[in-house]
């Protein structure tokens, strides 16, 4: 079985500051890794995904994540955030295509 732990439930940050949202996972098999963003009253939108290859993955809106197999982590980063990045961010793992196991979510709040 797989599980995901997002280490911070809320992350407040000032505009133009860097941010890191932490995600650890547990799995006995190889997994695919994802970050999704959910804006208020919206569905989930894929930010980026790791399937194989380079451990540094670049996504939309300037976000990137690094897969660290030894530490079973997949932290999300952005060097400079905007007010519009305020949203809920979900880390997810999948041992087979289609079945996503989500973390609890991290609420990113960007303040002016």
């Amino acid at each position, binding site marked *: 079985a797989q599980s995901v732990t997002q280490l911070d439930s809320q992350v407040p940050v000032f505009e133009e500051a860097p941010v890191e949202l932490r995600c650890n996972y547990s799995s006995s098999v190889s997994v695919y890794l994802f970050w999704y963003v959910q804006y208020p*009253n919206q569905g989930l*939108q894929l930010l980026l995904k790791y399937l194989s290859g380079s451990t540094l993955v670049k996504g939309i809106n300037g976000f990137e994540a690094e897969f660290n197999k030894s530490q079973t982590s997949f932290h999300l980063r952005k060097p400079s955030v905007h007010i519009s990045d305020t949203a809920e961010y979900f880390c997810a793992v999948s041992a087979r*295509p*289609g*079945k996503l196991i*989500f973390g609890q*979510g991290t609420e990113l709040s960007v303040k002016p």
Partner: protein
Amino acid sequence: EAGVAQSPRYKIIEKRQSVAFWCNPISGHATLYWYQQILGQGPKLLIQFQNNGVVDDSQLPKDRFSAERLKGVDSTLKIQPAKLEDSAVYLCASSLGTEYTEAFFGQGTRLTVV
């Protein structure tokens, strides 16, 4: 390209009543998913369809929840009878096929059971 359509957007019912949600996936997407997102938690997969067949319904509470995908396109999720703990956002998602990892999500239906 049109996205995943869900209706209604909001629904309030009393406990023990029944309710149904509708989902129209992206055209051509063979795989359809229903997720339940309880407030403060990440989405949880309830059921996955490949065309009109069920791939995974291991977390669907089958005593009260049912889902169908007639003709392999639209899908409905029904709850009967509803309980207070069913209050959640029900998200529908679709993907090209089971071998594709990216799922596209609808805006969801927010259900409140009072």
